[in-house]
């Protein structure tokens, strides 16, 4: 695997392979010395044109556990914030001798542009591009679902037959996009729920079902309910009238939580707006696997970095 730009590049075998590899990486964390020297001497550049402390730290931890050196460029306090272009920044870090770039960028397709360019020949891992994709989030979500479902017997399994409902601002969500296509590859069925304004045009051509009624979706008894973060600037852009109305219609509140089956997984990519798209009770309930998602993120990112950095003359 030269790059990871989109989950749509992954076929079933590859996707399951990454999840299996992440299992091995998770085992490392349980050892006396939770660190490997596998990528010793290799350098990973975290290039964050958009602030995301969580994702950045997760990639940093993953790279370090594999023994790689990490350098970080973030939007704040660097030339990135002074309008330096992707090309100039990429060429600058290329000149420093970088083996992989972990790129977070506000523009959709930025990772693809970087990978297709001749500015740099390092491996590119998409850590979120605009409203397009966030492949490692999709992978860690799938991993979390599989692990919660199958525990130690997870290896080799797909998500065949799993029913996942994703709720909220689908239109602007890279997490939703990566989940939709990865879950489809893994054999799960996906249902998208949100106000019509936040369901993308042409959604009928996506491999999903969709609707606007969260209560109806909950009544179907999904195996997973994934709540997406809703941003208040969407309200100002007239996607919905008011936060209270949003919470009432599409929030996972206590009443809706009570109607979920006891083994329904509640997921959220974080950071959460408690009281808006998810109630505190839901976020902290036994059904919630939100913290597992964070833990698993490191294992998934270790697996991905290993795959893009270990291959030589493949």
């Amino acid at each position, binding site marked *: 695997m030269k790059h990871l730009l989109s989950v749509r590049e992954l076929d079933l075998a590859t996707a399951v392979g990454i999840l299996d*590899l992440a299992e091995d990486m998770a*085992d490392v964390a349980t050892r*006396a010395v939770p660190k*490997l020297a596998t990528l010793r001497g290799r350098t990973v550049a975290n290039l964050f044109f958009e602030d995301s402390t969580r994702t950045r730290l997760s990639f940093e931890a993953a790279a370090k556990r594999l023994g790689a050196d990490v350098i970080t460029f973030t939007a704040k306090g660097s030339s990135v914030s002074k309008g330096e272009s992707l090309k100039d920044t990429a060429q600058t870090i290329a000149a420093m001798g970088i083996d992989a770039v972990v790129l977070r960028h506000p523009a959709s397709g930025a990772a693809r542009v970087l990978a297709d360019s001749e500015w740099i020949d390092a491996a590119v891992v998409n850590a979120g591009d605009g409203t397009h994709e966030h492949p490692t989030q999709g992978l860690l979500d799938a991993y979390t679902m599989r692990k919660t479902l199958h525990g130690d017997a997870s290896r080799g399994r797909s998500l065949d037959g799993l029913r996942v409902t994703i709720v909220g601002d689908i239109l602007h969500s890279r997490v939703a996009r990566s989940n939709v296509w990865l879950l489809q590859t893994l054999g799960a069925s996906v249902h998208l729920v949100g106000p019509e304004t936040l369901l993308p045009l042409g959604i009928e051509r996506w491999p999903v079902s969709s609707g606007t009624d969260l209560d109806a979706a909950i009544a179907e008894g999904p195996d997973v309910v994934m709540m997406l973060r809703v941003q208040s600037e969407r309200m100002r852009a007239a996607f919905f009238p008011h936060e209270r109305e949003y919470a009432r219609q599409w929030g996972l509140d206590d009443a809706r939580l009570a109607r979920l089956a006891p083994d329904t997984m509640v997921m959220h990519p974080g950071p959460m707006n408690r009281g808006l798209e998810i109630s505190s009770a839901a976020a902290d309930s036994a059904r919630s696997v939100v913290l597992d998602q964070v833990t698993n993120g490191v294992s998934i990112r270790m697996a991905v970095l290993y795959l893009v950095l*270990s291959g*030589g*003359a493949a």
Partner: protein
Amino acid sequence: MAARTVLQQADITRALTRIAHEILESNQGSSDLILLGIPTRGVLLARRIGAILDELEPGSGTVGELDVTMYRDDLRAQPTRTPSPTRVPVGGIDGKTVVLVDDVLYSGRTIRAALDAINDLGRPRAVRLAVLVDRGHRELPIRADFVGKNLPTAVAERINVKLFETDGEDLVAISESPTSDRDGRA
């Protein structure tokens, strides 16, 4: 590219039985003994040796799996290898005698990686090495404690180990390598 059979099924069984006896003898019994097979065929051989040990001294054949992929020094030179799981028996390896089991000993680099992997897992009392075939051409100061068969080879030759569990037959053969690169059997 004619292949020449050097060990038949009976030879392999005999060699493994002898190795099991030697392990017990050198360990002065079966206490605190762990066999760690190196995937893929080393694991199968470790299980067979473990089964023999169990017959000789019931309960002595504790077997685990040790993947060394993440410790290799040739990751950049080779296509991406998919690691196998590492499975350490309950109780860990601290204070135990660990016997590494692999099919072929060649350059010694795999064993070097295995020693690093063990180092990350804990601190055994001693580490020993058992191999079915030692073909020579070491690149590191490593030797096996228990050897099924010493097999002098040329670098251009290739050792092919087949085991019933994966290949449907037990067999060790030598053939001319189509290219003389030193591939996976290190």
